[in-house]
């Protein structure tokens, strides 16, 4: 057990959009990147959440460009900056919200999130969590399939890379 070893004690994967609708499990699913200690719930100074909007949009072309074929927003949210023994920067919660989801008749969408094992990108005595996150899936009809993927690494300092 060490505060410099960072682990995810929550979930590693869950559905975001299933059968063209927001999945029920997004309401109670989170991932995290916290110190491997028994009292990790005692983290302090938590900030955020940071919020990134991932928008997917398809309409028809002129002269039907006022008809939307599919559109959804996936919000990636994470709290950050949490300290253990007044130091380090951990991620106590990372979660997804879908405030907007429309998929045209005859089409379907399946999107999910996968979280990899967190790592420590900080320095000795000042651990910083890094959590790789992949959001991916398909928007499809019986004849066509579009693949969608966003990949990020979010950090305990609030940073994010990828897209």
């Amino acid at each position, binding site marked *: 057990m060490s505060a410099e070893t960072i682990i995810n004690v929550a979930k590693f994967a869950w559905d975001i959009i299933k059968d063209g609708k927001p999945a029920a499990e997004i309401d109670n699913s989170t991932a995290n990147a916290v110190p491997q200690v028994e009292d990790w719930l005692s983290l302090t100074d938590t900030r955020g959440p*940071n*919020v990134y909007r991932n928008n997917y*949009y398809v309409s028809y072309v002129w*002269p039907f460009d006022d008809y939307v*074929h599919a559109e959804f927003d996936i919000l990636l949210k994470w709290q950050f900056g949490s300290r253990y*023994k007044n130091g380090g920067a951990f991620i106590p919660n990372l979660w997804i919200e879908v405030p907007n989801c429309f998929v045209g008749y005859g089409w379907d969408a399946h999107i999910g999130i996968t979280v990899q094992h967190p790592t420590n990108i900080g320095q000795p005595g000042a651990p910083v969590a890094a959590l790789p996150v992949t959001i991916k899936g398909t928007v499809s009809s019986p004849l066509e399939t579009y693949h969608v993927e966003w990949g990020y690494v979010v950090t305990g300092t609030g940073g994010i890379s990828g897209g």
Partner: protein
Amino acid sequence: MANIPEGALRSDDGHYWWDGENWQPVDENAAAGDGDERVAARLANGYPASGDDLTEEQKRALLGEPTIVVEPLAHDEVEVVAMEDSGHGDGEAMA
């Protein structure tokens, strides 16, 4: 009214029209309110007046390319300090 002469060639995305020499941008504000122009274009190209009446084959032919946008709605960052009792210099800013 949109700023497009009757019968002018339109780009596939509908945002430009051909004046015979160059592509000109469509006056989007005018075009957005000109439902009659859209309906006329649909009928002129052999489509139904309403998108609700498109066949599956027509929908496939008219489907646009997906656009994917990522934008931050809230973003902040913090500096990192060492943990107490870490033996690595308490409170020292790391970033």
